[in-house]
């Protein structure tokens, strides 16, 4: 079971959070057109390795937080607030 260190609440069980996917995609400007929104909504890198992702602390502080997690080992490298940039480890 993932134990996620919420930057606000501390270490909590996975069940308090809702996983919400790749946190590197950004909503395009309103006039960016269909292709840009198509990429934003649908296309994902889906890496085998480190992944920066959203977890919504739904049963806690209600914040969207960023988690750098490894998709094959499930190791968590770091967590951060929504407005922070995350560095992905090299390996």
């Amino acid at each position, binding site marked *: 079971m993932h134990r996620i260190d919420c930057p606000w609440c501390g270490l909590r069980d996975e069940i308090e959070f809702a996983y919400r996917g790749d946190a590197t995609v950004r909503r395009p400007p309103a006039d960016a057109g269909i292709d840009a929104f198509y990429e934003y909504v649908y*296309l994902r890198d889906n890496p085998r390795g480190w992944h920066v992702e959203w977890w919504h602390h739904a049963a806690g502080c209600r914040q969207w937080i960023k988690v750098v997690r490894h998709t094959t080992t499930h190791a968590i490298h770091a967590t951060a607030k929504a407005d922070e940039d995350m560095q992905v480890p090299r390996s």
Partner: protein
Amino acid sequence: MSRYSAFRLFLNGLTGHASWPRAWRNPEPRSSYDVVIVGGGGHGLAAAYYLAKEHGIANVAVVEKGPIGLGNTGRNTTIVRSNYMFPQNHRFYEWSLKLWEGLEQDLNFNAMVSQRGVLGLFHSDGQRQIFARRGNWMRLSGIDAELLDRDQVRAIVPQLDFDNARFPIMGGLLQRRGGTVRHDAVAWGYARAADRRGVDIIQHCEVTGIRIVANRVAGVETTRGFIGAKKIGLAVAGNTSHLAAMVGLRLPIESHVLQAFVSEGLKPFVDCVVTFGAGHFYISQSDKGGLVFGGNIDGYNSYAQRGNLPAMEHVWTAGVALMPALSRVRVLRQWGGVMDMTMDGSPLICRTPVEGLYLDGGWCYGGFKATPAAGWCHAHTIANDAPHALNSHFTIDRFRQGLTIDERGAGPNPWLQ
């Protein structure tokens, strides 16, 4: 010579079973093939088999990074059915079910296709209407479906909780032709049948790159060297994004882990496949007596073939809520498979922007039951460089066009699909 039958089993029994041949050869890869299928699961082996059988293309290699059949083919809950809402899905899965029905004679391998029925339960008027819409649509398409009331459900599965349930059972949608198939045997059966038609099955051969010349495939780089190919089919669900990235393709897919469980062997306990409508749980009983069950994906991107406690708690709780007598049954094993979860819950069997590169993936929960039809459609698409009507909807482009096939109406949220 090596045909399987009761008679041959008897003869071999007299001679200590010393003369059974290998089920499939273990060949060295040749320098090139007409078609290389990447992925030696049920889908890839089926595609190779149908290329040889239906399209006369036998100069085919299936390359598999490990031993065949140990990805999702060997780690699912073995259910087959065609009870989908939308015609794009139910017509495809119905063709799959038809192929399942004739599979064993076709392959001369007993995969224990067991049409014991698949029963989906509903617990509210709203759910009944959705099931009715689905069942009626299936019937319009010529697929069997029956809407059962509570008493009819009770007659089939008496040990459900009819009396103390939080979400009372109101009825169910039954597809009698649905059921289960012995999953390992599907990979082995297709492998043996494809091998006998000349297909090379190359195990322990991992694809590390796809060579492209002038936007056309030239072959695959592998841990056993370069293998040339005029056409390449990817059948690596769970890892589709990883392979697609080798040619710079991003897909509307997230990989997620889905868990399954099996109990200790029991005398017959539940006859058909039952799906809970008020929680995430489905269950059937294998011919060996184990109760095979599962639920929803764990709900986060993962390439790890193992799950975690929260999803397990959900599934088991739902199981006991549905069938209180399960409470004292002990469960033996827990495992996980990696699903390609697409943004609409429906698959991809299509050409790609790279000439000669074809894709069979994005299976979400449907991969195992799709095996024969997916292989069949994939082979058709490769052989003709154009899809069959049955898979013409399963394109990548549908997301851009707004032609998503979203059974659940969950939208582009793979964790909800």
